[in-house]
């Protein structure tokens, strides 16, 4: 969860997948009452921007992509071409994240 949050907030609102992830995280926090009332304006701003609410996308190449849509945040509602682009970026971020965590873990082990 923390890994997701830090990765998504670094990317910010530049990508549909990171917006979807941030939106989901903020909603979860709100439900747990962790954020103050002003989080409502945050959520509203997110909604008015390009955050997409879950809806079934149109039909083209979808049977192949249905599995992928479940793995990429916000993937369910994306156009097929967007999905491909977002997936590429998402994978790059995930591999970067793995590299960073790996370094952190190795660093910790060496120091201890």
């Amino acid at each position: 969860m923390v890994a997701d949050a830090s990765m998504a907030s670094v990317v910010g609102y530049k990508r549909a997948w990171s917006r979807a992830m941030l939106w989901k995280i903020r909603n979860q926090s709100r439900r747990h009452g962790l954020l103050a009332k002003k989080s409502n304006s945050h959520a509203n701003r997110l909604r008015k921007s390009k955050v997409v609410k879950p809806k079934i996308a149109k039909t083209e190449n979808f049977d192949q992509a249905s599995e992928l849509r479940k793995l990429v945040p916000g993937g369910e509602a994306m156009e097929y071409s967007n999905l491909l682009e977002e997936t590429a970026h998402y994978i790059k971020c995930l591999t970067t994240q793995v590299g960073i965590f790996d370094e952190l873990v190795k660093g910790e082990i060496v120091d201890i």
Partner: protein
Amino acid sequence: MSGRRSRSTQASAVSRITDDQINDLVSKLQQLLPEIRDRCSDKVSAARVLQETCNYIRSLHREVDDLSERLSELLATADPAQAAIIRNLLMQ
């Protein structure tokens, strides 16, 4: 012929993405997948690319989860100052 034209006009009204652009995006994705990139230099089917992409994302998720867990355990027993720095980095 006119039937096809009107269909494609409808399609481009909805989205201007061509098949070529889709193929281009698929091959970009292919370049990111170690399984395919290292083994098959020939063109691979889009379906295969999507399948391998799903597998790759799932394995990356597993790696992140595994490393997160190890990191949490290490932070719990590590030097407090060092742990605090790393936690700040991760928590933004």
